[in-house]
């Protein structure tokens, strides 16, 4: 047999093509040293990049970094290890958390977690075309039919419960029931986490959310008790919170009883830390024991964690929780079962009544004092937060709110006022106002607000829309204004030194709001005014809000009056339009320390033609900006500062950042109007964003260390407020989006 063609040998050796008569050639290879050498040579020659030879090294590296990868996953990414899935006979394969397998008609897709009794899987029910969660008794209990029976008894009892805050049970399957011999039950798939996750991640609850969630759990418990079902293991891990909504569900009824049976009589029903003393002493479950566990959950929600020992005092006081809340918790967790509430219903009622009367008392007390000091403003706003959050939680039960939602309701009572302006004019003092949808509610001009603490909450749930407020300037002097869930549309032109929300020596809080100044048709239109105008040492906090101005407008105009401090805190907020922050001083000649303006901005997007402008009459004002994880995009100069009398603007402006993306399209990143002594004019560009501009501006050697990316933005034809903007970066194009269009 002749040697095969060289090209055949090469293709074969490198695994690219197997010759048709392979067995015959095997014999030839055995005998032919030349062909073997040719094949060896072919492998070596075509091993591009040492892929084959490098396998051994790669394997060693993989083994070396396994612990690092594991710790990354567990410590930094929070991924726990899998349970011993091989003991689940119904699983066919598993890769990571993705599983295949089948129980009855359910197709298992993913392992979601495991508790003491069961493991939970995400599954698809093909018949009903829905995703469900399946809880299956842990394989450890396989040889204990008594446990499976208890497990199923309790699941069946829970399946009979109907309450909006009790996780329903769709189906129960039993061993020998034709469902592959597994015990388990089917529940809805909740897109959220448990209360335990929430506590681990976010710490303590604020009072409003605390009341809202607890009320739901307590009412769920009351419904179960009324149906004769004890929970026996109330704890944060058994409370589910909806990811994107207000849903709260109590889950896993009665499972502890089965677990108890399995572990023997001397162990606990429930979970250490939550179990009542009489249970620890060997007692069985009861209404009082469920309430004790609920009280512990309430304590943990208020403090962020349970006290580590009996001696440790709960830090309720530090968390601004009022005395009645401490008393309520102490009542439920009383060591003597007889001293606890007689029922969950009683506990729920006490929660609601205490909360409402405390809020009313505090309101009256607050109205008696004038809220001149910052502390008092803070107090008023805590109160306002409480009222809002609690009111939201009351949606399900408070018929008053439902009825009043279409109108202007004050302090939870439906009002007869035709508009917010009318209500503000008619009712003096501090108000918590809820409004439904409808522009008419804002038809009247608002009176100037002086030394009042006003909270206005738009009920976006009503008629499915955000209330639109078309209004002229709103002036607040002293006190505080909090706006939640409103779409504000400034009406009329704003002068260059004025604003839509004019805040003087007061506090402004915006949550989930948008303020849009309608776009001027003319490209040259300059209206100049600001959406928020701060003076006299005001405080401005915005969360999850959007600001849009026209080309000439600015988001914030701050006056650094001598001797005042202005504070601006923005998070998860977006801005598109002309200028972001303009700073001026009304009277640079005035005596006293220059005013200071502090800005903290995080997780936000700013798309503008010029981010910061220190006006010529801003002399003496000091501006400090802390930026983190933002997208800054400025089509022109990022910072423009005019000459100041007797001081360098560089000293007047301090900018700190971490992790933002900076994109500037103009020729200069930073423009100091006058050259500092002995220095050159900064930012002379050649049309490209010069990195040295940034480095000089930031006083650092390496600007790229400071932000994740600095890219050049090339404004195309698209107007600034277009939905999406693209950036040319070194890593390819990156997209930033406001997620909002200008109308």
């Amino acid at each position, binding site marked *: 047999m002749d040697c095969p063609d060289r090209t055949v040998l090469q293709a074969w050796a490198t695994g*690219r093509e197997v010759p048709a008569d392979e067995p015959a050639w095997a014999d030839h290879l055995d005998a032919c040293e030349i062909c073997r050498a040719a094949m*060896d040579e072919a492998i070596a020659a075509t091993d591009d990049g040492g892929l084959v030879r490098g396998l051994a090294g790669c394997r060693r*590296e993989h083994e070396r970094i396994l612990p690092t990868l594991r710790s990354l996953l567990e410590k930094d990414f929070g991924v726990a290890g899998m349970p011993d899935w091989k003991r689940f006979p119904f699983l066919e394969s598993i890769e990571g958390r993705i599983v295949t397998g089948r129980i009855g008609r359910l197709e298992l*897709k993913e392992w979601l977690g495991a508790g003491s009794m069961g493991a939970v899987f995400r599954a698809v029910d093909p018949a009903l075309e829905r*995703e469900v969660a399946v809880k299956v008794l842990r394989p450890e209990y396989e040889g204990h039919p008594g446990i499976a029976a208890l497990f199923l008894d309790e699941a069946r009892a829970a399946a009979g419960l109907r309450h909006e805050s009790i996780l329903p049970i769709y189906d129960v399957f039993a061993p020998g029931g034709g469902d592959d011999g597994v015990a388990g039950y089917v529940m809805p798939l909740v897109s959220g986490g448990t209360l335990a996750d929430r506590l681990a991640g976010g710490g303590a609850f604020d009072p409003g959310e605390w009341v809202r969630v607890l009320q739901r759990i307590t009412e769920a418990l009351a419904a179960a008790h009324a149906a004769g079902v004890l929970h026996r293991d109330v704890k944060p891990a058994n409370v589910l919170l909806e990811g994107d909504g207000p849903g709260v569900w109590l889950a896993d009824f009665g499972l502890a009883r089965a677990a108890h049976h399995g572990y023997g009589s001397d162990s606990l029903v429930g979970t250490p830390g939550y179990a009542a003393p009489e249970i620890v002493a060997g007692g069985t479950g009861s209404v009082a024991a469920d309430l004790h566990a609920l009280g512990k959950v309430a304590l943990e929600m208020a403090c962020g964690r349970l006290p580590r020992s009996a001696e440790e005092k709960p830090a309720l006081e530090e968390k601004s929780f009022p005395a009645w809340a401490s008393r309520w918790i102490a009542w439920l967790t009383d060591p003597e079962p007889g001293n606890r509430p007689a029922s969950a219903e009683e506990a729920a009622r006490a929660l609601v009544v205490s909360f409402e009367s405390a809020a009313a008392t505090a309101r009256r007390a607050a109205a008696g004092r004038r809220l001149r000091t910052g502390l008092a403003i*803070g107090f008023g706003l805590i109160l306002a937060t409480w009222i809002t959050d609690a009111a939201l939680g009351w949606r399900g039960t408070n018929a008053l709110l439902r009825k009043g939602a279409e109108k202007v309701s004050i302090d939870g009572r439906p009002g007869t006022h035709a508009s917010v302006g009318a209500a503000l004019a008619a009712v003096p003092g501090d108000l918590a106002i809820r409004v439904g949808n409808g522009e008419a509610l804002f038809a009247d001009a608002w009176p100037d607000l002086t030394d009042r603490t006003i909270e206005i909450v738009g009920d976006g749930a009503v008629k499915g829309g955000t209330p639109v407020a078309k209004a002229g300037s709103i002036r607040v002097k002293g006190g505080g204004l909090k706006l939640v869930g409103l779409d504000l549309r400034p009406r009329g032109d704003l002068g260059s030194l004025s604003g839509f929300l004019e805040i003087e020596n007061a506090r402004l809080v915006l949550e989930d709001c948008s303020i849009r100044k309608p776009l001027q048709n003319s490209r040259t239109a300059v209206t100049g005014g600001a959406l928020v105008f701060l003076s006299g040492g005001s405080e401005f906090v915005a969360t999850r809000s959007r600001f849009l101005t026209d080309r000439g407008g600015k988001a914030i105009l701050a006056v650094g009056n001598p001797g005042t401090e202005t504070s601006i805190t923005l998070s998860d907020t977006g801005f598109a339009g002309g200028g972001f922050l303009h700073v001026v001083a009304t009277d640079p000649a005035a005596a006293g320390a220059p005013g200071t303006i502090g800005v903290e901005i995080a997780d936000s997007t700013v798309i503008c033609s010029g981010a910061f402008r220190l006006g010529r009459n801003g002399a003496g004002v000091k501006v400090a900006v802390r930026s983190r994880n933002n997208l800054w995009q400025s089509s022109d100069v990022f910072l423009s500062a005019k000459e100041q009398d007797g001081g360098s603007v560089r000293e007047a402006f301090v900018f700190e950042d971490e992790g933002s993306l900076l994109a500037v399209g103009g020729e200069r990143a930073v423009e100091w109007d006058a050259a500092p002594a002995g220095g050159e004019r900064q930012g002379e560009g050649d049309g490209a964003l010069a990195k040295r501009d940034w480095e000089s501006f930031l006083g650092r050697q*390496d600007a790229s260390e400071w932000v994740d990316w600095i890219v050049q933005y090339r404004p195309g034809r698209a107007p600034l407020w277009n939905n999406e903007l693209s950036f040319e970066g070194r*890593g390819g194009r990156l997209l930033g989006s406001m997620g909002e269009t200008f109308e």
Partner: protein
Amino acid sequence: MSPALSLAMPSPSLVERFGNLRPWVGRLVFARDLPRSRVAIPDTRLSLLIRLREPDDAAAWERFVADYGPLVYGFGLRRGVPVDEADDFLQEVMLRVTKSIGRLDYDPSLGTFRSWLFQIARHVLLNRLRHAGRRPVLEGGSELMRGAEGDLGASAEERLREEWELEYRRQIFAKAAERVEASCDPGMWTAFWRTAVLDEEAAKVAADLGIALGTLYVRRSRVLARVREAAEMIEREWARETGER
């Protein structure tokens, strides 16, 4: 007003809040730093990339770490990060990914996911080397001069990127080898591993395995063919998962 209430809404003066600007990291808690309580329900229809934006999608992160961890590690190691710092390098890059992935939209039509990852790895690499006064090692052992600003020259930049691509191929190939080994007859695998990878003498391996030399060569070629095939498949899988076409 009770003092307890006043604590809830601290209004420290600006001097307190801004007087000492550096170091300020850690004093503030930003919403993005808080772990989100939302647990995503992973959906296999979604690409890995989209799923990674959800920090609690455990399965996606496991995949990401398992697939791309070795790539980053190997890249750092071969480009001048000392062995005892390579772990640290890997962690830094991975944590940067967690910080960055949710923030910026990534458009697969404009560049690959791995080129995005490359930017992060490259940035961390150059930073570390700069601090240590070292230069990145490029293929062939040569060290290229960097500009005063810490930029690599354009050709060096291009070569660094090529190195990254090569590392990517290496890792895919290694992944493919693992996959084939798991489903392969051990005798087949040993024939391949010892001759092609460990470069042992063919005659000795054949003798150890008790097979003819010809058979050994046939086995080696077959396994290699399977590894190549698996590598192509994995490359397609990864590309699909990261939304590439």
